[in-house]
């Protein structure tokens, strides 16, 4: 104990949170949280959705004011009553949804709200461009500072947001799940930049869902659960399994509970599918009971392939066979009638109707099954939706709760329930676990097991290679619209996929 205390004395803390509590009507988002952040380190902040991560960031960024507790910067108490004050004190936040002016240039964005002036009123454009160029070169990035932000990729937009922070001479940079929108390669660049910044003495607070990143990047890590501070410790002292258990508060089973289902006949066959530049001669077959993975970088044409097969986008040439019969369809509706279903990429926007109840969302894709002559039978609707919600173990206060109030994992289960209720046999899952808690992910995997055990076919698109390797019977790799290869479960490795990805 004594030793630990002495060690603590040596440490140089740039930021200290002392007993921060923040309440909202009905919830305590942060409950007496105390965390010290060491200067010049990358400090990971992890926890499930609702653990209090975002609230903590908002308190640090001056958006929320704690009900009690204090923030100390360099050992002195400080109060941020607005984001501007926080920024002046050297605390910058790079939000997940990047807040930049799309129509302004990179240089202009970097100086947003902080323009360089010539004399008293005139803007010093030249000076700003020069300074922007310096920062870009410093980061070793290939970005034209005169380009408008809207033409940049998401990854580069994030870099611009970071440059904005550097330009503001931030001492503390808070990054809210930057990796959620990045591909693996972009991630490497991001990691390099973040490590560079640390080596220059900037402290980084890095929020993430992905534990692998925490191990790769962070020096220390803080775990939050249900608004409470569980622990803060050096990453070197902890295992992944331990972190997961701290996050979910219970022991976890296998990360990927794969069960192999009996494989049946070919249900879907795609031959020489072509669509402009996005799909170049794609052919593959999938059998019933199979989980078929589609891997590749963002922009490889994975979602586009699903959309083409599902009749959402038109194709230039190629054939699609369902259970051996060639199908000619023109719309998504036709594909649904052929027994296909799609759990789309953007759950909140495309998967669920947020303001509708759990019950109504569940039956939405198959109203015919609960209605007679177009009139909905309320009893049947209640009964069926309850059956599916129970079967998928959706946790909801009631059937009439609007889906927007459920957690991400439960929302995704409702989307899956919708297609199971439609009795779809071939299910496309596009990034099915994106933004979902560790615990809930495993539940989604179990549902995938159940689906294939019932003889359905699952086609899973994912950017998380581990997830594909863990859950799929076969994986197809795509790159720039081309099929690069296909591997069986027993021969697949991350290295093999990566080799085909690029």
């Amino acid at each position: 104990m004594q030793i630990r205390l002495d060690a603590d004395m040596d440490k140089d803390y740039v930021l200290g949170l002392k007993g921060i509590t923040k309440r909202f009507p009905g919830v305590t988002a942060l409950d007496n949280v105390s965390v010290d952040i060491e200067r010049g380190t990358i400090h990971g902040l992890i926890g499930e959705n609702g653990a209090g991560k975002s609230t903590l960031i908002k308190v640090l960024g001056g958006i929320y004011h704690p009900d009690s507790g204090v923030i100390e910067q360099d050992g002195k108490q400080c109060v941020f009553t607005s984001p501007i004050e926080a920024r002046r004190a050297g605390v910058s936040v790079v939000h997940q949804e990047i807040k930049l002016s799309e129509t302004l240039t990179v240089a202009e964005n970097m100086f947003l709200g902080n323009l360089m002036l010539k004399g008293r009123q005139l803007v010093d454009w030249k000076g700003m461009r020069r300074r922007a160029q310096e920062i870009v070169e410093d980061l070793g990035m290939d970005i034209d500072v005169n380009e408008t932000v809207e033409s940049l990729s998401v990854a580069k937009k994030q870099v611009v947001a970071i440059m904005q922070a550097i330009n503001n001479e931030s001492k503390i940079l808070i990054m809210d799940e930057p990796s959620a929108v990045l591909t693996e390669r972009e991630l490497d660049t991001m990691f390099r930049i973040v490590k560079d910044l640390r080596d220059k003495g900037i402290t980084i607070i890095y929020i993430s869902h992905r534990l692998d990143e925490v191990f790769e990047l962070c020096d220390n890590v803080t775990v939050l659960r249900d608004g409470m501070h569980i622990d803060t410790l050096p990453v070197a002292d902890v295992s992944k399994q331990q972190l997961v258990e701290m996050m979910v508060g219970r022991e976890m089973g296998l990360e990927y509970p794969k069960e192999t289902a009996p494989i049946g006949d070919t249900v879907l066959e795609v031959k020489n599918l072509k669509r402009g530049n996005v799909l170049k001669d794609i052919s593959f077959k999938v059998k019933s009971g199979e989980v078929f993975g589609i891997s590749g970088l963002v922009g490889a044409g994975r979602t586009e392939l699903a959309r083409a097969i599902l009749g959402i986008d038109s194709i230039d040439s190629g054939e699609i066979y369902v259970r051996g019969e060639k199908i000619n369809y023109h719309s998504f509706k036709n594909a649904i009638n052929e027994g296909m279903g799609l759990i789309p990429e953007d759950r909140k926007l495309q998967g669920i109707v947020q303001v509708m109840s759990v019950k109504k969302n569940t039956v939405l894709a198959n109203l015919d099954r609960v209605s007679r002559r177009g009139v909905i039978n309320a009893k049947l609707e209640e009964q069926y939706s309850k059956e599916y919600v129970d079967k998928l173990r959706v946790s909801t206060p009631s059937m009439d709760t609007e889906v927007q109030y459920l957690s991400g994992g439960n929302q995704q289960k409702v989307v899956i329930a919708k297609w199971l209720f439609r009795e779809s046999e071939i299910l496309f899952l596009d990034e099915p676990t994106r933004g979902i808690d560790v615990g809930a992910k495993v539940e989604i995997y179990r549902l995938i097991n159940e689906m294939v055990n019932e003889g359905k076919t699952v086609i899973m698109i994912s950017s998380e290679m581990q997830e594909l390797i863990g859950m799929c019977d076969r994986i197809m790799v795509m790159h720039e619209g081309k099929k690069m290869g296909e591997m069986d479960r027993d021969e697949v490795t991350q290295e093999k996929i990566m080799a085909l990805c690029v």
Partner: protein
Amino acid sequence: MNNQTETLGKKRNLASDISRLSKDYMSVVGIILLAIIFSISSYLKHGAQYFMTLQNWTNIMLQSSTVAIVALGQSIILLTGNFDLSLGRNVAFISAVGALLMKNVGMNTGLVVLIMFALGIVLGAFNGVMTAYVGIPAFIATLGTQYIAYGLAKLLTQATPIPNLPASIGWLGRGYVLNNIIPISVIMMLFVYIVAQFVTSKTKVGRNIYALGGSQEAAFFSGINVKRYTFGTFVTAGILCALGALVLMSRLNSVAVTNGQNYEFDAVIGSIIGGISLAGGKGRVIGTMFGCIFLITMFNGFSQLGVDPFVQDVLKGIVLVAAITLDVVRNRKKA
């Protein structure tokens, strides 16, 4: 733990029930309050009761019926998350065509009625095609239609009222049933609202309309034909414009370019007071009927109190802003 979550769920339900009830019936409560206030003020001002009379209420209901019939179309469009600015001027244009065909051409009334409905369908279909298939924002497409319809109405009538329409359509706006107490136009209003309430709340079509308003993308990815439904709601609104035009010209026994003026906005105010959300996907169409009656009752009361009509316009603007503020506040998500 389990018990706790259960009671929490129940409490939340009770709270949401109360908020839902207050939203659904706010306009009914509003009408009752207005009735009390205006009855008292009528006594205070005139020393006699002019407001709470059968004749005055018949009047209120007559006026409400035409606005409410057109407003129903707006409500259905609002439910899908769209908006129609052309409704009021469509009424004027359809009436003008109808009046000219009856009076100047001397066409058979039944045939004219059919033509008026066809015209309503064409106007709605135009809005629908532009919005759903061409992809122009509804706001702009229907603004265009508004000007086209108004321009054509002025052109056809030379901006001169056409009075004394054939007696054969008089019954629609001026006829009564049940001991000459209940106006036929009110029956018409009730009829379309009951049908619409049933369709929107009990049928597949209705459910899909709500899904569209909740999220067009999610509706699409559930296999709903978003374009066809969007088109359909505009056509429905066009048909209701034709019905509104008929009832209105019959009641006024005259057609002028001012027929139906501002109906589209009155419809929005009525819809929002009635509990329909501007953001789409929420509310009950029957609420719009009460919302419209509320609006008409209010202005009837103001007129009796001798409030300057120009001031009434100002008040209408205030009510519109207040109603939309209410809608925004109601839909603001809890942090």
